[in-house]
């Protein structure tokens, strides 16, 4: 694989996707400390919000340690070079949240929908397009569930609504490098040349790095990852590892590798409540194609109703659940426990 000379933008997810393994309890002070270190390390873009995006604070997804507004205000004002993004899932957050985040100082808004439902992002991308200078990203989740042609149709919808960058998101960590290559290559061929293309991976099958490289080779120029892999499931593409690989391959990221390593080792890992790794359940997510943030919910329901979390996750995959259906997990666990006569 020859990627020499390519320039890409890496986007760190610790302070958004990393909220999932932290049950949304990262404090404002921790966010500011980590964000400042990332700024120092030359990470160009970081995401900050509740794990489920703006407005995610809920019984269903978990109540965070602070509000989106508190996190964003505190982080944005400390950044020298690093830009801050916020995620928004229509159906959870609204344009009111978007406006609030812009007022807090974000430079990028990412509007995320299930891969077949891009049209629900019209309202939000259209509004974002009216805000001068705002970087607008359309983010198609669970992209493994449909083939490249259908996915590109949906990406084009987002492009049409005003996204200047669109993402192929492997929310379940299910994809293998060929799955990524085919989707990214077709998107690159079909989208406008000026539209940027990104890939967001999860490491559930330990494919984070390989998939991200495949994406770059096929034409993606934005890659999501998180230092020490702090993210849902087995985490995101471990960013310091990816940066090291990029350096060896001659891909420019602009990130100071050793500083990135130090943040991962000295700040992120000590903050983890459990080691974010490919454990049995995280591997099941990738294997069965299940939304990564279901992990802890399945573990909790398994414990409460004396079931196997793997059984719960496999069944969620079989039922083709999508991102946001966390409420399905306890409901399903109750059905399974009843079927086994344990409740």
């Amino acid at each position: 694989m020859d990627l020499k000379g390519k320039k890409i933008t890496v986007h760190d997810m610790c302070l958004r996707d990393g909220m999932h393994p932290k049950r949304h309890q990262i404090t404002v002070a921790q966010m500011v400390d980590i964000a400042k270190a990332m700024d120092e390390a030359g990470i160009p873009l970081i995401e900050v919000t509740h794990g489920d995006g703006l407005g995610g604070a809920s019984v269903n997804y978990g109540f965070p340690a602070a509000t989106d507004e508190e996190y964003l205000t505190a982080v944005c004002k400390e950044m020298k070079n690093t830009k801050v993004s916020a995620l928004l899932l229509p159906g959870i957050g609204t344009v009111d949240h978007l406006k609030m985040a812009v007022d807090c100082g974000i430079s990028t808004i990412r509007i995320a929908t299930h891969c077949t439902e891009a049209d629900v992002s019209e309202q939000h991308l259209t509004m974002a397009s009216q805000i001068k200078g705002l970087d607008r990203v359309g983010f198609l989740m669970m992209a493994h569930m449909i083939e490249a042609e259908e996915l590109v149709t949906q990406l084009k919808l987002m492009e049409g609504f005003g996204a200047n960058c669109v993402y192929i998101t492997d929310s379940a960590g299910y994809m293998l490098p060929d799955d990524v290559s085919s989707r990214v290559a077709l998107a690159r061929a079909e989208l406008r040349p000026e539209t940027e293309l990104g890939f967001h991976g999860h490491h559930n099958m330990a494919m984070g790095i390989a998939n991200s490289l495949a994406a770059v080779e096929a034409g993606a120029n934005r890659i999501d990852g998180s230092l020490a892999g702090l993210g849902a499931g087995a985490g995101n593409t471990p960013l310091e590892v990816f940066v090291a690989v990029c350096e060896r391959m001659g891909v420019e990221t602009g990130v100071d590798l050793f500083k990135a390593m130090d943040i991962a080792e000295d700040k992120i890992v000590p903050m983890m409540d459990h080691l974010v790794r490919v454990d049995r359940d995280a591997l099941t997510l990738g294997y069965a194609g299940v939304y990564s943030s279901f992990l802890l919910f399945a573990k909790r329901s398994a414990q409460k109703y004396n079931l196997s979390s793997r059984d719960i996750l496999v069944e969620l995959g079989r039922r083709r659940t999508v991102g946001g259906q966390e409420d399905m997990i306890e409901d399903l666990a109750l059905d399974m426990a009843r079927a086994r006569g344990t409740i």
Partner: protein
Amino acid sequence: MSKKVKAAIIGPGNIGTDLLMKAMRSEFIEPVWMVGVEAESPGLRRAKEMGLKTTADGVDGMLPSMKADGVQICFDATSAYVHAENSRKVNEQGAVMIDLTPAAIGPFCVPPVNLAEAVAARAMNVNMVTCGGQATIPLVAAVSRVQAVSYGEIVATVSSKSAGPGTRKNIDEFTRTTASGIERVGGAASGKAIIVINPAEPPLIMRDTVHCLTVDEPDQEAITRSVLAMIAEVQQYVPGYTLKNGPVFDGKRVSIYMEVEGLGDFLPKYAGNLDIMTAAGLRTAELYAREILAGNFVPNAA
């Protein structure tokens, strides 16, 4: 019962047509007009075949004769954008407007919770909140009538095929209007609504989860009793309104897991989200009609 109140349906799409099929069976409502904007609309053609007067010129096409035709109740199954104008026009002709769009210019009506109140208030425009609101607000109210609810949250999961272009273009209307209904009708001090669209095939039946946080420790027995009674109330007009699990009690959290299967009149059975809207709209109209027939209420232009 020989006498019925005459009604018009504005919007011959999926919702309007399903509503028409339900209204044809009503003891109290007689649909006489179907109003559309496209001459080629299959919904208009179907209504015509069923013996209704039709127009493709919007509400303006019906206005000149609606009074003479005795229309006293109108249903708006179009979109929030045109609703206010439609409502003003039919109100001027002395007809009550039942709003199935998310415009929410009139008071919210969730039949088993506040229908009697809305009708007693003689409102000339009532709003049916949202599909997710009709499916969940009764249960928030079932908890809040037992004890104070500090926070009510609902998650509505609907199949892709049942989420129409109107909902998709303006999904924020759903979350805002439903959250507001959870507070104003459901009785929660603060409300949140989440909608998830799932494209699985075969399409999934509408699912709804209701989470309430009670101020004090929940009275499990009383809440369970209240929830079961409320479900029976809703089942009177949506027989497929089914408790799947719960109420689950976890500290001050009360969670109720529901499935809503529609009657399958015109819309498929999985689209319980749409069915519960049309069924609730018709139920509201029927109570108005009974008041009108009993001579207790004469709708007229204010």
